[in-house]
């Protein structure tokens, strides 16, 4: 992994909301094609970290390098255009729309024909739609959700909604994928499926993944490297196996072995 290119580098990031310090002086990097996990207890600042990466929050201090360029202030739309896609901890899908339509929204940044052409379903708009629909169908096939293609998202189980969210993120053909607790609230079988999908996305399509997850078994199994946060501070960074032995990490998160 050491020779892999660095995709994302965060240097001395600090973020605060009024008097509350969400992140304090955090630095770490994400290398090409790796699965990089962020773990920590509730309120450690994990989701804030993701929000900083895809431009929802703007840190008061620190620098972000994305593909070796210093990143200026930007918004999530720009992040999406640069190939960063994400899923959310509390599902953020359009509940009244079908699975297919939801995933199609992930293609948003790839569609260029104007409103009128789309309304008339004519010429380039039509070809574009067909092309994009095919991409979406490939994602549907990949995530094995053919049976719910036409089902409104609101009717689906939590586990399936999570999968649809992942589908929407994948439909954007990202190079960097941010996953915020993709396995929360799932049963063992659903978790296994999700792990399989994450690994396949990573290995088959070479997508770099930043993963927030609470299930330690999952994190230790599939991550290449792990960052540990606690109260907005970084208390560990390294290979999963090494972190298991780090006393700070153990006392903050894994629990002390008496």
């Amino acid at each position, binding site marked *: 992994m050491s020779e892999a290119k660095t995709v994302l580098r965060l240097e001395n990031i600090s973020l605060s909301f009024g008097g509350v310090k969400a992140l304090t002086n955090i630095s770490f990097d994400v290398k090409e094609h790796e699965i990089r996990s962020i773990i920590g207890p509730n309120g450690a600042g994990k989701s804030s970290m993701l929000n900083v990466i895809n431009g929802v929050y703007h840190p008061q201090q620190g620098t972000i390098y994305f593909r070796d360029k210093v990143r200026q202030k930007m918004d999530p739309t720009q992040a999406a255009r640069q190939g960063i896609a994400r899923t959310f901890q509390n599902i953020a899908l359009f509940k009244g729309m079908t699975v297919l339509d939801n995933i199609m929204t992930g293609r948003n940044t790839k569609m260029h024909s104007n409103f009128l052409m789309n309304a008339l379903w004519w010429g380039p708009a039509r070809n574009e739609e067909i092309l994009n629909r095919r991409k979406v169908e490939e994602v549907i096939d990949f995530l094995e959700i*053919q049976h719910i293609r036409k089902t409104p998202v609101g009717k689906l189980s939590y586990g399936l909604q999570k999968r649809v969210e992942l589908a929407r993120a994948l439909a954007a053909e990202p190079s960097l994928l941010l996953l915020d607790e993709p396995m929360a609230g799932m049963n063992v*079988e659903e978790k296994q499926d999700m792990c399989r999908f994450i690994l396949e996305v990573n290995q088959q399509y070479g997508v770099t993944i930043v993963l927030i997850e609470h299930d330690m078994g999952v994190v230790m199994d599939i991550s290449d490297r792990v960052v540990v946060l606690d109260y907005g501070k970084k208390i560990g960074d390294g290979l999963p196996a090494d972190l298991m032995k780090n006393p700070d990490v153990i006392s903050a998160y894994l629990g002390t072995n008496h």
Partner: protein
Amino acid sequence: MITDFNTETFPKMLLRHAETIPSRMAYREKYLGIWQEITWAQNLEQVRALSCGLSNLGFNRGMNLAIIGDNRPGLYQAMLAAQCLGGVPVPLYQDSVATEMVHVLNDAAIGFVVVEDQEQVDKLLEIKDQVPTLHTIIYQDPKGLTDYVESFLHSTHQIQTAGEVFNREHTKFFMHEVSKSQPTDLSIILYTSGTTGKPKGVSHSHQNFMRAGKEACIFDNLTYKDNILAYLPMAWVGDHLFSYAQAMAAGFTVNCPESKETVMSDLREIGPTYYFAPPRVFEGLLTQVMIRIEDAGFIKRKLFQAAMNCAKKFGTQILDGQPVNFLNRLVYGFYNLTIYGPLRNVLGISRLRVAYTAGEAIGPDLFRFYRSIGINLKQFYGQTETCAYVCLQPDGHVKYDTVGPPAPGMEIKLADSGEVLVRGISVMQGYYNRPDATAESMDDEGYFHTGDAGIIDHDGHLRIIDRAKDVGKMANGKLFAPKYIENKLKFFPFIKEAVAFGDQRDTVTAFINIDFEAIANWAERRNISFAGYIDLASQADVYVMIGQCIDQVNEDLSVDDMLSHAQIDRFLILNKELDPDDDELTRTRKVRRGFIAEKYGVLIDALYAGKDEQFIEIKVKFEDGRDGQISGNIKIKNAKIVRGSPR
């Protein structure tokens, strides 16, 4: 189209269809949301490429080719490709766990396997050490397999590409191989589901399936214009008859659903003209309809009821071509336009000409419902050993409690014990490598002993009561037919499975498995709260309701002079669903009585000891293969025995 089919083989039929109906669809498969079509001409090309590729890898005449996966055109083509080379396809149940496959793979000395996807490849890699003959695995869907480095793994695509090259270099090879195929050659080995002991391989010749397929097509006027949905396991004899033998015989189109979960919506999209489903599928469909009708508004509900009353009175007569007066026909016609037609459309069966059901007894109400709304639903009888072709119900002569007269080319007779004996065109060559078992089940006159107990009525229709070996005697020496009782119980939508005990006992008792979906809905309507399956199964209200079902069965039994003594005395509701993964049911969902009696022994003891409650711990296997345990107290209730004099 139909000529002398005693001399036909499947490869020769492929050539014929590619020549006579080259642009008709042989297969349709939904991929990336779109139905992809394969014509007979393309089918021949693809099969030829696959055959040549297989031959290139060393697959030869006399070898067996295992096939594992959901219904896919590619897998049907693999069957054909093996047959073209003089090999024998051996389909396996795709949802078997790896260890269950070991026996079949070894028994058939499998060297080559064609599988659908990564799931099956993983299973085979897990057991490869236990199957010394296995040396080549060919997969259809490369998804997830790119990192697999094993040199014995090939994709169908690779094989076909190599096959095309081989075909160009050896242009006469394929036709020469096909011309060698003889009607008496082995065409397939189908393994029995193994209700008792290890699965046995049933060997059929081309002639067996070809003739059964042709005769069945003629019987129901099936032609190359028909469509079928292939969604039942390829290893099951029924699928081999309908989606392979009949499709090859008539040249009709086989449609493969996108995935297991999409079968119902694919059914609606395709609108098959010929359809098979086990009774539970028809039951599930009806349950869905009934639930939605219950949710519908007052007017719709009343209209539906009125339409159903009309259908009940005249529907089946009209379907059977019996005289019905003009006014009633008019009313039926009106409802056909407004209710039955739209209903058939919703169910995806509006183009249906013939539908069959078999495998388990079908409830008379259920059967009548479909026939009364104009669906030509019929029953047939057959088993793996007879290509699922023994008895067929002819149009216009459909009785609810029989499976019809012997099919063309078949003879039946009853042994003294009541066992059904079968002779004719579809009877197997024998069990593969098991002359002992073959000798046991085939007599000198060529009759196959089915193991089913039946009676032949005065019209020559066969009625099956039970498995011959399951028919027992109660302590007082009177007849005990457990399946007969269980079927009566299962006709209630709330009861999914039932197991009756009473052999060598004074009274009959029963285990009940509730139908979770139906009862959950029932409970919701009555504002009964529950936490899940286990909780629902133990609710007092549910016990009362199931108790009423059992009382009803007892009442039915009380008027049957043969069986009035075998009424259910006590019952309990199990806290877990009987499951093939726990070996409680076979893969075809038949109850494994002996195994259940052993596993739940404490419960049976409690039933007969007169206890009100019994604690039990049960081992279960989760779908991911892990073991777990369910424990809890199970309540036992008494049922009402009806002591009326038999009518």
